[in-house]
């Protein structure tokens, strides 16, 4: 990291709040965030998930002699959400046909490629950051891509019946001990879960089980029960790392999208 700063030092020092210390977080003697500290709790005694999060991908440096630069950090689940499942995701015949078409077209119908909103749970794996803002009655998840938001109601309301489908659906959360269980329905019928085009549809019930292992780490078990797209319910667990001492940075995709033109010739 020191070498990285040496390569890029003056630029880092003058960037807006990219390196501004987050107040009120546990720190080590050297001033670095203490990521192994216990998970914080709300005044009600529940785990507090508030903070900025990014896929827990190790940072790696590429070095050429004394000059080092940091590699990009990307979650493999961004390509295939079921990458850690021994047999992969249990696609239905309908899904297989969808995937076949999507592969044959090189993934060019991916809504994300066309700057559509970051749909959860896929959004957890994208290369932009999320910020959780937790209050007693609601968790809000902000996402840098297209400056998007998602609401998770914690006030005990039921999921809606036959809701108008949306990109992120409708989410409620309840506590099971220290685990926040988020249930979602009302997802649009044409959503993708990853770059290879794994579908999720209007028939889905998605359950995300959030555990804050310690200050710096959150585990999310993503369980999908979608009989249109999958022959049986399945679940995967992803890890998110807390990102401290920085800020959210907006990334408005339609600002200068130029990749889709490359598909058209």
């Amino acid at each position, binding site marked *: 990291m020191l070498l*990285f700063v040496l390569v*890029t*030092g003056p*630029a*880092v020092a*003058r960037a807006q709040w*990219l390196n501004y210390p987050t107040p009120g977080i546990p720190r080590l003697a050297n001033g670095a965030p203490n990521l192994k500290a216990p998970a914080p709790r709300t005044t009600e005694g529940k785990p507090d998930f508030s903070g900025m999060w990014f896929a827990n*991908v*190790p940072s*790696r440096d*590429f070095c*050429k002699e004394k*000059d080092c*630069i*940091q*590699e*990009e*950090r*990307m979650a*493999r689940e*961004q*390509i*295939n959400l*079921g*990458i850690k*499942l021994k*047999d*992969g*995701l249990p*696609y239905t015949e309908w*899904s297989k046909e969808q*995937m*076949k078409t999507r*592969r*044959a077209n*090189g*993934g*060019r119908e991916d809504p*994300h*490629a066309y700057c559509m909103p970051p749909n959860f749970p896929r959004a957890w794996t*994208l*290369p*932009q950051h999320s910020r959780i803002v937790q209050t007693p009655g609601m968790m809000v998840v902000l996402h*840098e*891509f297209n400056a998007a938001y998602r609401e998770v109601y914690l006030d005990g309301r039921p999921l809606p019946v036959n809701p108008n489908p949306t990109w992120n659906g409708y989410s409620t959360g309840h506590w099971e001990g220290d685990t926040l269980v988020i249930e979602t329905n009302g997802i649009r019928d044409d959503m993708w879960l990853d*770059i*290879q085009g794994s579908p999720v549809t209007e028939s889905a019930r998605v359950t995300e089980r959030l555990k804050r292992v310690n200050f710096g780490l959150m585990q999310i078990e993503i369980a999908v029960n979608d009989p249109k797209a999958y022959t049986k319910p399945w679940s995967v667990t992803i890890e998110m790392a807390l990102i401290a001492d*920085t800020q959210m*940075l*907006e*990334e*408005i*995709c339609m600002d*200068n*999208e*130029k*990749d889709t033109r*490359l*598909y058209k*010739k």
Partner: protein
Amino acid sequence: MRTRLSPLSAFVGLCLVLVPSAWAHHSQSEYDLRGKVEVEGAVTKVEWRSPHAWIYVDAINDKGGTVNWSFELPSPVTLMRRGWTRDSLKPGDRVKVTGAPAKNFPTIAIANFITDSSGKPLFTGTTQIHEPEPESKEPR
């Protein structure tokens, strides 16, 4: 040397590519990820905008003519988190860029490695998602 990939293998076989490459918000099937271009020249323009920064580089081709190459980079947000600013590259800066060419456009590529004129690395893509993944499955 360029080797063509079928859309299927380019799409699913990304995990087998061991070279670093800049990652995008989509499948990258518009690029020949096993192909390689190397361009050395002067930056003519920098587009510091989402969802991807682009740099344009004038290079001399085999016939002595000037060709203006377009290179896709990650988003400015991603680059800023790795120490770049909008001023890190400016028109006139000399760079050497290695990348994967667009399949259908002869002077467009996605950058995976950039050095300055002294050879100091300025940018590299990722190898992390490209490592072999034995348990990875194609859809059944």
